[in-house]
């Protein structure tokens, strides 16, 4: 069964009613733990972010990011370990190169590359996660809803 885009069910958004939908792919070892720590420490973070835990940020295929946009995400955050910290040694280097190339491709497809953000967040950087979550939400709010044109 094909997943349906949430866009189809929604009312048209105006600037006032627009709440950004953000999908965050976070690596199990650093970024996800960082976000978890933010929760445990009762730090406030943006409620617009829907986290998907992956084993490594290098696991995040560009097709998954595109699919997120297709199904209704207005922004996608990919977060992993700092360089040198990767549990799988060099997964995050691959992520970095992948996101660079994907941004180039998205920009040429007419999708603002600021809708895709890459961050390195360690398991202890709860504040950084909280800050990034608000920053990115505000960025997407400013960019407005992503309206894909299929025809």
């Amino acid at each position, binding site marked *: 069964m094909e997943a349906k885009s949430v866009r189809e069910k929604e009312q048209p958004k105006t600037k006032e009613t627009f709440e950004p939908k953000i999908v965050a792919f976070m690596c199990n070892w650093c970024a996800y733990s960082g976000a978890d720590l933010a929760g445990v420490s009762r730090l406030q973070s943006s409620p617009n972010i829907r986290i998907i835990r992956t084993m490594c940020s290098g696991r995040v295929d560009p097709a998954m990011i595109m699919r997120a946009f297709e199904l209704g995400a207005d922004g996608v955050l990919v977060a992993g370990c700092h360089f040198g910290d990767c549990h799988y040694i060099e997964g995050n280097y691959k992520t*970095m*190169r992948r996101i660079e190339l994907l941004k180039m*491709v998205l920009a040429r497809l007419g999708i603002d590359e600021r809708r895709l953000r890459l961050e390195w967040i360690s398991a202890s950087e709860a504040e950084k996660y909280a800050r990034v979550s608000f920053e990115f939400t505000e960025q997407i709010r400013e960019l407005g809803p992503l309206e894909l044109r299929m025809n």
Partner: protein
Amino acid sequence: MSKPKLALYWAASCGGCEITVLDIEEKILDVAEFFDIVFWPCAMDFKYEDVQAMGEKEIDITLFNGAIRTSENEQMAKLLREKSKILIAFGSCAHEGCIPGLANFFDRKGIFEYAYKQSPTVEEETRGTYPQPHTRVPEGEIEIPEFYDTVKTLDQVVEVDYIIPGCPPQSFQVWGVLQAVMDILKTGKPLPPKGAVLGAGDKTCCDECPRERKEKKIKEFVRPHQIIPKEDECLLDQGILCMGPATRSGCGALCVKANIPCRGCYGAPPNVRDQGAKMISALSSVVDASNPEEARKILETIADPLGTFYRFSLAHSTFRRAQIPNGKAQEKVVAQQEAEAIH
């Protein structure tokens, strides 16, 4: 018993798929012997009305090549769907848009603007005259098909039973499929599962490639004319952008055997939704950079990344087309494409 009925049709395509059917050489006579060819505008004289007069599901098999560019293409696709038991998307255009699908970087306005106004080959007296679906002439009204904004693939307008990929599908594969079909019709064997890809492998092009692969570390991408590639070494290792890792096998690694990188015409390998995304994934793993600036510098040596990754599959990709707002931002896209063409 009457012969099974076969139809072949072309929509927005170059005609290469028709040639590949004839490339099975004298075996075409066996096909004509076995089947009653009821519709094949490229080779035989049949008219639209002939198909229209047929009963529902009267044609056993239709090989449909070409993308859906105009309302006429769509109308024919719907008509042939109605009249056929089995509809096969034949070739890359019907399967995933192929080269006609690259027009999805623009829309109707942009394409017309160039083709009928800016292009240096337009005659001065007709410059800026655009085709209209309806035109009044003294004798009455003329109607021509509507040109769509977006090229669609066959499965985006009608239900498709099977796919034969390739630009064009290799003739030995076509013959293989036709033989299998004749065998099924003769013996009543079960059909392959619906949606199956016929006449192709289930691995990637790299699997068929005879070249030697080493661990890849790419410092710079080059175009095929800039170096003389070594005959037995992986082209990607040598910095030539080869689509092999993200392309379905089945062609017999034709291009790479001729020292030319794979262009990706057999489409995405099994279980891959978006060929371009897979190529992005594969490429970024082998770029030799340890920081974003360095990575960007190397990646910027790729000439026309979008047109390379999605050369055959843009119309069937996740986004299907460039996200240009209707009419707006056209100049920006054109300028970017032109700059890349020069590069």
